[in-house]
């Protein structure tokens, strides 16, 4: 039925367009124009005739007014089928008519139909954009109103002026609960201590909702729920969060990882680490900074990874970086044993950066062979580590590195000397015309103070 109406509409539209007085462009036999001429009678007689004539034929009289000068344009009504469709009661089969058209006319017809179709698409898009605008405006107004309504009540509870949260709960309609959760998250982030706990308690009645949304909610709802769980704590929601960690949308997975990587969640780290490979393409620094959010309690997990000679190199790098962020001094002894066995450039760099943070002068002899490396990244990291753990004891090495063929190694050496309070040594080099005098000046200007 709908298809028939569309066909009919197309035909009527063709009639309107085809009625444009440009007959010269068409042969007198032009069928589209014929239909147009026949049906576009201002009085509408031909149309009504076609609808009402039980024989299905238009009377010659009905066409005479519309196109009296072109008798050849008389429509052959046998090509039209009249079928009941509601009140219009007309269905026109265009197929046979279309096939009887010349090639040019078919193209023309397709062009016209395409124009109409595009025109409808334009109308549709304009309407959609407007409806979207209206919807968004309404939602914004509603949320503003709700926030105004909830805010004084929440602060009333926090100030213990009105300690009955039920009154607040009664005002939250089921459709607004996710929005309420978002609202609570926003407030929670700015609270500490007892007030924070009170806000957490306020979210308790929504635990069931959170559970169900975690399991099977819309992705946008799951995001809101994860944000709240990040604030109120994972316990009770572990399974749901674990499931989202494995979600095909990695961004959502990362959010779940943030929820897991909180102090007191060390028990969940083995599960997390066993699925960490899902984020292998992600930036290591980002991942390690999230992992380090778990605090000092999680350090043994990563220490065991860097101590394991069979561990995945990527996991080693991530663990070393996490331990560096945690400032885990216990890992230096573990690393000392593995240092000489490392072959991969990224692994060596990660180990050196960890050493820079947690190592001591006793580690330096272990690192010096790496200065022979052809890789400037490794050499500059060695120099940085040496500068960080014992600049005074290894001035000669640092001074020598000022003339390294790589600018990055020289910079690391100059920075190490400046940070170690040895700017005077740098100044002497500048005064004696060191080839990298400009770099040394720059480092003194930036770091000496």
């Amino acid at each position: 039925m709908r298809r028939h109406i569309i066909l009919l509409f197309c035909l009527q539209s063709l009639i309107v367009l085809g009625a444009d007085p440009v007959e010269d462009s068409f042969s007198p036999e032009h069928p589209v124009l014929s239909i147009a001429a026949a049906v576009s009678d201002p009085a509408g007689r031909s149309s009504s005739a076609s609808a009402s004539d039980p024989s299905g034929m238009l009377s010659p009289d009905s066409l005479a007014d519309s196109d009296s000068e072109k008798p050849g344009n008389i429509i052959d009504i046998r090509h039209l089928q009249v079928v009941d469709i509601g009140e219009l009661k007309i269905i026109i089969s265009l197929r046979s008519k279309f096939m009887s058209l010349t090639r040019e006319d078919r193209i023309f017809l397709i062009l016209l139909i395409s124009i109409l179709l595009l025109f409808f698409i334009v109308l549709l898009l304009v309407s959609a954009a407007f409806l979207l605008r209206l919807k968004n405006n309404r939602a914004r107004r509603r949320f503003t109103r709700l926030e105004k309504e909830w805010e004084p009540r929440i602060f009333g509870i926090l100030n213990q002026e009105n300690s009955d949260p039920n009154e607040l709960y009664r005002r939250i309609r089921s459709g607004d609960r996710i929005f309420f959760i978002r609202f609570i998250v926003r407030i929670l982030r700015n609270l500490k201590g007892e007030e924070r706990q009170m806000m957490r308690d306020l979210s308790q009645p929504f635990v069931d909702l959170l559970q169900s949304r975690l399991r099977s909610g819309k992705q946008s709802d799951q995001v809101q729920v994860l944000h709240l769980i990040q604030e109120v704590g994972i316990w009770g929601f572990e399974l749901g969060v674990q499931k989202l960690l494995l979600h095909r949308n990695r961004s959502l997975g990362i959010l779940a990882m943030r929820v897991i990587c909180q102090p007191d969640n060390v028990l969940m780290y083995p599960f997390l680490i066993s699925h960490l490979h899902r984020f292998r393409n992600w930036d290591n620094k980002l991942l390690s900074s999230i992992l380090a959010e778990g605090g000092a309690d999680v350090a043994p997990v990563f220490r065991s990874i860097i101590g394991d000679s069979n561990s995945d190199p990527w996991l080693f790098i991530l663990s070393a970086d996490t331990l560096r962020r945690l400032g885990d001094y216990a890992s230096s002894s573990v690393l000392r044993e593995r240092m000489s066995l490392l072959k991969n450039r990224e692994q060596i760099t990660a180990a050196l950066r960890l050493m820079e943070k947690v190592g001591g002068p006793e580690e330096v002899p272990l690192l010096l062979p790496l200065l022979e490396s052809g890789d400037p990244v490794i050499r500059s990291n060695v120099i940085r580590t040496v500068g960080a753990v014992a600049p005074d004891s290894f001035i000669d090495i640092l001074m020598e590195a000022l003339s390294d063929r790589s600018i990055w190694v020289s910079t690391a050496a100059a920075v190490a000397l400046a940070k170690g309070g040895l700017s005077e040594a740098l100044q002497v080099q500048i005064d004696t015309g060191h080839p990298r005098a400009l770099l040394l000046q720059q480092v003194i200007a930036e770091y000496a103070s």
Partner: protein
Amino acid sequence: MINIPHLLLEIFNATVLIYFFLLNGVYLITGIFAYFALKHYSRNLKTVEIDQISHETEVPPITLIAPAYNESATVVDSVKSLLSLNYPEYDIMVVNDGSRDNTLEVMIKAFRMVPSPRTPTAFITSSPVREIYCSELYPNLWLIDKVNGGKADALNAGLNHCRTPLFCAMDSDSLLERDALSRVVYPFLEDKRTIAAGGIIRIVNGCEVKNGMVKDVRLPKNLLARFQVMEYLRAFLSGRMGWDAMGLTFIISGAFGIFKRSLVVEAGGYRTDTVGEDMELVVRLHKHCRRHKIPYRIKFIPDPVAWTECPESRTVLGRQRDRWQRGLMEVLTRHKDMLFNPRYGKIGMIIYPYFFILEMAGPFIELPGYITFIIAWLSGNFSLLYMSAFFAMAFVFGVALSVFSVALEELSFRRYARTRDLLELFWIAVIENFGYRQLTTWWRIKGAISFFRNVRTWGDMERKGFGKK
């Protein structure tokens, strides 16, 4: 006997028709991809905690390189906007490319710049650097004063003095939104293979700007600027977003794009012998990575916004479009070995041919198309009705694409908050087809002629300054 002129006319008409359907077909496909990509992006956006990126996590430091040539009217506002960005660690490096106005003096005075040593980290050829300054007020603000050598040369000078793993190439007359860096760096965080990412450029004309920040987004009053608002929406939201969804980002706008420094240095920096240096770099990066089998990806992100002032006079706009067309042709002819070359994968087989055949050759088909249609009609070889139907179709399709871009904007970012602006955008989608489009075609033809005449100049741009009516 064969009627040669008639035959030629027929062939040309067929070419125009094929071009028309191909071009619009591509627009349609990119539009569809853009719709799904934007939906996906908007959904993902909720999972990204921009505050966490900009404050808590360790993100790669970035150097913003902003070449400035005769930018005294806007440079201070631009730098102020850059200084207030929400990003943990970044340097700003304004490169005064031998300005003839008082850009240097304005900068020195406004930010108390003093000469300061800075060692180059790379040695890409560029015009001599006269002096390097650092601000006494903002230790992360640097100014390189150099002999004029063009935008690419200025970017190379900045790149030579950049010491962060990422750098952001931008125009000094652009305003970045506070979160722009945190957002545009996200592709680098979510995928280590990312070597470049570009953001969307929007038109600042007509908007209220305070302290280098866009406070109120409005449509410009100038009609030419309004047309450009529509053009930018179409090009970025529908075009680049769609191509990006197919993994075919081919252009990162010179006004705002982030690159991996080491790789750009390895590839030789910016080419100074083209006015399309931004596109040329991206094409060369594609080529470099594919030749050396480096896993990589180049991304377009639709919401880190750089606001830019667009030309409001026909002369200046004409110059800009002339330059764009020249730049496009220079880049595409230089790397023509990529055309239909399977070695470059879908870059060589899809996006390069698209730009080469449909974008570069566009004006050579469009303008003669208009003329030939008229000749054909006058000589009685073509039906007026057919011609009208064809133009009506082109018109409605053009409107549909523009309206689609506005709808995408409404679906995703809704920058134009006034309903009246929305209405006006729809109206612009209709009227831009009468005059403006033909004008841009004409400018592109002129650009093509300039290319063949080997013109190398940029042409002067006039700046009113942000927020000035």
